[in-house]
C-alpha cells in the first residue's frame, strides 16, 4: 500500500521534466532523413509541375525543344553502356534510380545490373550483389557513382561494404569519398558522407585508407571521422548494435535447404557482428551434423535465427556482442 500523500506539484513537475526530455536525433540521422524526405518530395512534386506545362502555349515550344535535347543528351532508362559491376538484389519500396540528365531518373528493378560510368540515387535501403563476390548496401538518401568495376564513389549518404575473406581473390574493392580512397582487406565496413565529411566504421578485417598525402590501415572496431578540414578523429566502436542495424534489413538472402546448421549460424554471426559461442564440444559436434530444411528468405538474421531455433532443441542466448548456442537438455532433434 502506498503511504505517501498527494504528490506536491513540484515533485510531479520534476517527474515530467526528467522523463520527458529525450535525446535529440543526431545531426547525421537528421541529414539521412532529410535526404530521403527530399528525394520523396521531389518524386511527388514533379507530376504537379508537369501538369502546368500543357496550359502554357510558350511552354509547348520549350517542351518540343526539350524532347529533342532529351533524345540527344539523355542516355535513356535502358542504358547499357559501361561494364556490368553489380546486380540489384533487393530494395525498399522507395527504390533506387539511375540518375539521368533532364530529370529522366530511371527506377531500377530487382535483377537489373548497374554499370560503370553511371550515377545512382538510393531512395530507400538497397542491396547490390557485386560480380566477383561480396555485396554493397546503401542507406536511404545515398547518392553514388560506379567509377569502375571495382570502384564506387560515395557522394552522400551511407554505404556498407561486405566482402567476405577470399571472395574476391583477384580484385580488390575501393570506395572513394572526398577524404580519399578506402580499400577493403577482407572486410565489412561502413562509409558515410554527410555535408562533405566522411565517417568510416570498420566492423571486420581492415581497410586501407589512402588520403591525399598519407596512407594508413584502419582495423576492425574502429571509427574514423574525417572533417572537411581533414581533421581526423578516431574512436573504438562495437561490431554489433544500433550502428549496424540498418544493414541487417538488407542482408543477402541465405539458402538453408539441406545446408549445415553451422553454416547458417556463421552467417547470422557475421550479419549481426556478433561472436558465435558454442557452449561445449558436444554441442559443436551436434551442430556440425544437423542439416536444415525450409526457407528463411525475407527474414532478417535474428528473425531467421528465431525461426530455425524454433525447429530444434537448440537454446540461444544473446549476451552483449555474442550469440551463445547450446542444447537445452537431452540430444538435439533434427530441424524441420
Amino acid at each position, binding site marked *: 500500500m*502506498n503511504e*505517501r500523500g*498527494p*504528490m506536491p*506539484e513540484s515533485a*510531479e*513537475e520534476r*517527474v*515530467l*521534466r*526528467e*522523463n*520527458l*526530455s*529525450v*535525446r*535529440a*536525433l*543526431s545531426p547525421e*540521422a*537528421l541529414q*539521412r*532523413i*532529410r535526404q*530521403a*524526405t*527530399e528525394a*520523396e*518530395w*521531389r*518524386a*511527388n*512534386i*514533379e507530376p*504537379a*509541375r508537369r501538369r502546368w506545362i500543357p496550359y502554357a502555349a510558350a511552354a509547348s515550344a520549350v517542351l518540343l525543344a526539350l524532347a529533342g535535347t532529351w533524345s540527344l543528351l539523355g542516355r535513356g532508362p535502358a542504358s547499357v553502356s559501361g561494364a556490368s559491376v553489380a546486380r540489384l538484389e533487393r530494395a525498399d519500396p*522507395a527504390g533506387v534510380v539511375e540518375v539521368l540528365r533532364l530529370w529522366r531518373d530511371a527506377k531500377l528493378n530487382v535483377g537489373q545490373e548497374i554499370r560503370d560510368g553511371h550515377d545512382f540515387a538510393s531512395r530507400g535501403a538497397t542491396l547490390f550483389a557485386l560480380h566477383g563476390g561480396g555485396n554493397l548496401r546503401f542507406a*536511404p538518401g545515398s547518392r553514388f557513382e560506379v567509377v569502375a568495376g571495382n570502384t564506387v564513389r560515395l557522394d552522400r549518404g551511407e554505404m556498407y561494404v561486405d566482402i567476405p575473406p577470399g571472395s574476391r581473390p583477384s580484385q580488390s574493392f575501393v570506395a572513394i569519398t572526398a577524404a580519399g580512397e578506402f580499400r577493403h582487406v577482407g572486410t565489412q565496413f561502413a562509409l558515410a558522407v554527410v555535408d562533405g565529411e566522411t565517417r568510416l566504421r570498420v566492423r571486420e578485417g581492415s581497410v586501407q585508407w589512402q588520403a591525399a598525402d598519407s596512407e594508413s590501415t584502419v582495423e576492425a572496431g574502429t571509427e574514423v571521422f574525417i572533417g572537411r578540414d581533414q581533421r581526423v578523429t578516431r574512436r573504438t566502436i562495437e561490431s554489433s*548494435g*544500433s*550502428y549496424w*542495424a*540498418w544493414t541487417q534489413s538488407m542482408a543477402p538472402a541465405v539458402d538453408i535447404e539441406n545446408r549445415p546448421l553451422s553454416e547458417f549460424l556463421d552467417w547470422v554471426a557475421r550479419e549481426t557482428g556478433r561472436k558465435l559461442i558454442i557452449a561445449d564440444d558436444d554441442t559443436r559436434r551436434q551442430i556440425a551434423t544437423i542439416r536444415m530444411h525450409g526457407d528463411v528468405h525475407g527474414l532478417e538474421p*535474428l*528473425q531467421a*535465427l*528465431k525461426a530455425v*531455433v*524454433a525447429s530444434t532443441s537448440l537454446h*540461444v*542466448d*544473446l*549476451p*552483449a556482442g555474442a550469440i551463445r548456442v547450446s542444447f537445452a537438455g537431452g540430444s538435439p532433434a533434427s530441424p524441420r
Partner: protein
Amino acid sequence: MDEQDLVLRMRRGDQQAFNQFFDAYAARLGAFAARRSALDAAAIEDVVQMTMINAMRGLGTFRGGSSLFTWLCQICRNQLADIRRKVARQPQMQSLEQMSEEKPLAKVIQLTDFRDPLDECATDAERGAVRHAINALPSHYARILELRYGDELTVPEIGRVLQISESAAESQLVRARQAFRAVWQEREAAR
C-alpha cells in the same frame, strides 16, 4: 508561419519551403516519437523517416484542419502503431530481440551520462511509467506537457506554437498537469 501557404509552396516545388518545413518539424518529430515509444535511436530514425516520407506522399491531403505538426504526429502515431502490431504478431521474436537489442539504449545513456547502472534501471522504469501516463492523456494535454517539460518552452512560446493565446495556454497547461497528476497518483497508489 502560414502552414497552408507553406504546404502549397512545397507542392509547387519551392526548395526554400521544403527546407523551412524540414527544419521546423523533423527534430520535433524525433522527440515526439522518442517520448511515445521505447524504441532505440536507430528505430526512432526509421520512424521519423517513414513519417516524413508518408507526409510527402500525402502532402496534397493536408487541409489545414489541424496544425501541420498535429497532422505529422498523427502519421507518426500510425507508424508507431504499425510497429507495435508487428511486434505483437511476433511475440517470440521480441523475446529473442529483447535479450540483446533493447539493452544498448540503456548502455548508450550510461556511456554518455556516466551514471550508475542501477540508477539507470530505476530511471528506465520511471520513464516507462511516465510514457504510459502521457499516452493515457488526451492528445492535446500530452502535447502541452511535452512542450513545457520536454522542450522546455515558456508559456508564451507554447501559445505561439499551438496558435492560442497566452492565457489559454496557461489554463490548458494547468488542466493538463491536473490530468497527469490524477493518472500518476493512481499509478503510485497501485504500487
